[in-house]
């Protein structure tokens, strides 16, 4: 088991993939290191949110994903 990172919306195009696996545990620094510099730049934007195990983190820098967790990277939304 590992941590699955999901790239939502336009981040899919930036990452070049919809998902990838990472070793657990995964923290904020580890996430920035593994997603590549372009995605990492976007992650630092306040408008980009991070969800872990189905919950949107109020402080994304507090990320601590464990074995089996899904980490979703959520860029600015556009519905309706």
């Amino acid at each position: 088991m590992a941590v699955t990172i999901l790239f939502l919306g336009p981040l899919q195009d930036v990452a070049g993939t919809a998902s990838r696996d990472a070793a657990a545990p995964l923290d904020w620094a580890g996430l920035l290191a593994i997603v590549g510099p372009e995605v990492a730049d976007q992650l630092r934007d306040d408008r980009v949110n991070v969800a872990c195990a189905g919950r949107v983190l109020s402080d994304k820098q507090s990320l601590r994903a464990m074995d089996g967790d899904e980490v979703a990277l959520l860029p600015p939304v556009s519905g309706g």
Partner: protein
Amino acid sequence: MRDIRLLNAPFDPGALIASFSAANPGLGGVCSFVGEVRGEQDVTALELSHYEPITLAGMEQLADSAFDRFDLMGLLMVHRIGVIGPGEPIVCVSAAALHRRGAIDAVDFCMDHLKSAAWFWKREQRSDGWHWIEPRADDYADRSRWEK
């Protein structure tokens, strides 16, 4: 009556609104908004993606806020996901209340939040490929009207 849904196939807003109205006996008014894919030149399709664990839950929280904030009898909030063609409905919000103001304001409130604060990502297909759509500055300004 509360009906919050994600749909992955075309729907008939008129039929949804009719059954929603019938499910709120004694109402004084119903206000409904239906959003459709604009038939713009060069746009052949729109795709709405979402994130299963949080998108519907976020719409339920938005409905909770609307019930807290407005004097409502019922709320219908339906949003499409998947690939949608020009002229097809994307979203339908309908509110039932004893008096018009609650119904009208609730629909306005829900739409402003669905546009720029619900967990959806939208892209459109043009002749040169897919393009992601970000909310316009107006969409953020519309939502900020509701901040207390």
